[in-house]
């Protein structure tokens, strides 16, 4: 695919050309003399560990940050990007890693914000705005309702809105910062089709992802950033995952294979019976045992998150019983769940996971803060600092210190902070909802190892994930959901991607499992 770059008039000049770009933040040199080129008609994958500087580089292109040094060239012409609007005018369109949507506005209003359809100068023409949006969605093959308010959408659909918005510009350069982090495989297919349609001889795509397997499918070349430097560019067809990963992390990672069936001791730690909610869940029941990892698979919106939230009392239950170690417990809110030894790590890191404006260590000890508090209510800062340091080391959280504010960490490192929070609290049951969302391959392995370690310590683990390979690799058993019902619970040995998908698409007409 690389050699298919257009020949002819402008063949020589790359579409976008960056030289010697540097950017520092207090205490962190995020980018250090990075050069990079995006050729015409190509999809350039940008990979690197969490905190390598990928998002920072893209924010420079989007006009959100100004570089400390470096030259940007678009079509061979030197440019200075003055701001987000200017970037748009230059034809650079970006999908940010964190959502940038207005939850109170509708889908169409979000997409065309700043470019409203006007009837007479000042007045809006809502109907033609919706018509335009509907046409856009038709063209992109997306099932979105232009009049739906964004706050009512699931994370995945919000991502679709972001993508539709970016594609609605007449962009030449499309930058996607981990667009698939919130998508399941079917949605990824939609996205790739969209990218395929966008890619023309005069356009180019920068594609950031931690999902190595996607790179082969979508990218022409792969550029690797490490610690703010460009450590190499490879043509996709001429390289393999192993080489890319070793460039990224500076060592080899051995992806383990699926777990050997492990014996699970008798009594379940957590049992859930006849769990239903007003909005979605219907009669969900399952058990998790000590030392077991129970995976949850399903399409987006299948209700896996809702099961977790209902268990810990974050959402009201309509009916259902929850037992811990065989004893029925009443859980009305997450605090009670936590007291009974159930911890829940949310999939929505920014809104439900981290305290962005607080320090790393404060976030890490938040759940377990009582353990760091004397009888009189005084907190022991020395011990908190020690714990913070400990987890920063153990999870390799990239931060200059434990006092750093979480908002200054890269997305993946923020995720590690959330995981550390639940490791610091000693729970019997841990529910991880998309625990590796936005995490680099190296760190993913670390998290897998962590989850396994936890299971081996005798904890019961529920892992919700939209990445089937991940589910298959880690889970002892796998529960599959569709439309708020449990359609299967399989032993790992019996599960394949194909039959999981099959169960995930068993809709209500087909009945549920026994």
């Amino acid at each position, binding site marked *: 695919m690389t050699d298919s770059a257009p020949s002819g008039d402008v063949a020589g000049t790359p579409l976008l050309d960056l030289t010697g770009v540097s950017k520092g933040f207090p205490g962190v040199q995020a980018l250090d003399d990075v050069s990079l080129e995006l050729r015409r008609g190509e999809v350039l994958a940008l990979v690197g560990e969490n905190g390598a500087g990928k998002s920072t580089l893209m924010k420079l292109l989007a006009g959100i940050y100004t570089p400390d040094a470096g030259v940007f060239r678009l079509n061979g012409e030197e440019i200075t990007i003055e701001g987000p609007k200017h970037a748009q005018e230059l034809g650079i369109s970006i999908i940010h890693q964190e959502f940038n949507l207005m939850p109170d506005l509708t889908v169409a209003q979000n997409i065309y914000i*700043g470019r409203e359809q006007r009837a007479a100068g000042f007045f809006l023409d809502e109907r033609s705005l919706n018509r335009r949006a509907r046409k856009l969605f038709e063209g992109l093959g997306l099932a979105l309702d232009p009049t739906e308010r964004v706050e009512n959408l699931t994370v995945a659909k919000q991502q679709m809105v972001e993508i539709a918005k970016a594609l609605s510009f007449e962009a030449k350069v499309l930058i996607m910062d981990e667009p698939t982090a919130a998508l399941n495989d079917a949605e990824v*297919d939609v996205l790739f089709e969209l990218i395929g349609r966008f890619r023309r001889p005069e356009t180019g795509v920068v594609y950031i992802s931690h999902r190595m397997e996607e790179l082969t499918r979508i990218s022409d070349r792969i550029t690797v950033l490490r610690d703010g430097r460009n450590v190499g560019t490879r043509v996709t067809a001429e390289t393999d995952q192993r080489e890319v990963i070793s460039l990224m992390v500076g060592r080899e990672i051995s992806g383990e294979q699926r777990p050997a069936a492990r014996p699970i001791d008798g009594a379940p730690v957590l049992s859930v019976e006849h769990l239903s909610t007003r909005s979605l869940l219907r009669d969900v029941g399952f058990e998790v045992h000590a030392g077991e990892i129970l995976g949850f698979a399903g399409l987006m919106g299948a209700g896996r998150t809702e099961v977790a939230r209902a268990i810990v009392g974050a959402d009201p239950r309509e009916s259902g019983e929850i037992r811990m170690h065989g004893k029925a417990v009443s859980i009305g809110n997450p605090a009670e769940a936590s007291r009974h030894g159930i911890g829940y790590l949310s999939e929505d890191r920014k809104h439900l996971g981290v305290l962005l404006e607080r320090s790393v260590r404060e976030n890490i000890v938040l759940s377990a803060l009582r353990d760091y508090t004397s009888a009189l209510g005084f907190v022991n800062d020395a011990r908190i600092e020690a714990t913070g340091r400990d987890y920063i080391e153990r999870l390799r959280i990239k931060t200059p210190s434990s006092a750093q504010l979480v908002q200054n960490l890269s997305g993946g490192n923020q995720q590690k902070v959330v995981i550390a929070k639940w490791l610091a609290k000693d729970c019997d049951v841990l529910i991880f909802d998309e625990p590796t969302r936005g995490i680099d391959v190296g760190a993913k392995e670390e998290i897998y190892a962590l989850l396994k370690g936890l299971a081996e310590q005798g904890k019961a683990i529920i892992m919700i994930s939209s990445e089937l390979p991940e589910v298959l690799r880690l889970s002892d058993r796998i529960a599959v959901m569709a439309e708020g019902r449990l359609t299967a619970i399989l032993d790992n040995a019996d599960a394949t991607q194909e039959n999981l998908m099959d169960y995930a698409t068993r809709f209500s007409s087909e009945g549920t499992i026994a």
Partner: protein
Amino acid sequence: MTSPTVTPPTSDRSPSTTAFAAIDKGTPRFARLRGSLQQLLAFASLILIVVVFSIASPHFFTANNLVSILTAATVTGVLALGTTFVIITGGIDLSIGTGMVLCGVMAGVFLTYLGWPLWAGVAATILFGGLIGLINGVNISVLGIPPFIATLGMMLIAAGLSLVISGTKPIYFNETPEFQSIMNLSIIPGIRFPMGVAIFIVMIVVAAVLLSKTILGRYTFSIGSNEAATALSGVNVRRWKIVIYTLAGLFVGLAGVLSASRLSSAQPTGGMGLELEAIAAVVIGGTSLQGGKGSIVGTVIGALIMAVLTNGLRIISVPQEWQSVAVGIVILVAVYLDMLRRRRA
């Protein structure tokens, strides 16, 4: 490299698409219904209060008294209309009360001291209100002072300037006696239906159209919903925030004209506390102080609830010291019921 992509067993993406479609159909219509139901119910608590007072006193539900209520609601109501925009952006404006007083004094300066013709004096007063708003907007948007502090400062400055400019004395509109008809002129023969109330009603319509049908309204919601994202989308958030505070200022100017006209004089004192009343009306009307949500209809209902309560308690001669207790409790109960409803819905 392995290709781990799982394509669904069926050839295309239909499963997820159907899943979407199923959810898609229900929600928006339902949400719209819920929205109007909510306002209907807020309206219902207003009606309930009216019914209670009507039963309690024969003097309450009379044409004259209802007009009195509307008259009482006019000044706070006009202030609340402008404040609704500010609050939807997630901001706040504490300067509307004393700002209104200052505008009244300026009306006195223009009409009485400078002897300008009526229309010019009124226009200049409204624009002066806009100027106050503009300064607030610049302080907030360009200098980055938080809205609470920026408008608190302006509140104090306006309170002081009113006294300074007026020489601490009321200014009377002896040169332009027609000035008082702006608020007081009876426009419907038979009952006293003052022009001020008509102006209030017109302003309600203007504000509602601005908020729901124009680009200004769209950006108001957008900024309140997610200011950073709005800015990233290329909207000049700074400029629009200045516009919105200026708009609120124009309403303050109009309120200054109306209140001075009503009193046939510019009173240089007072105004403090009015901002809380106006903000209360906005919030009782369902506009969130977090920003992003709100409506003009809600604000009007909120302002009416406050005015009806105050009037009704006086009409049924509740001892004055109990009146504020009653208003406090009704506000709590009204908003609590609203919460309940929302949680159920």
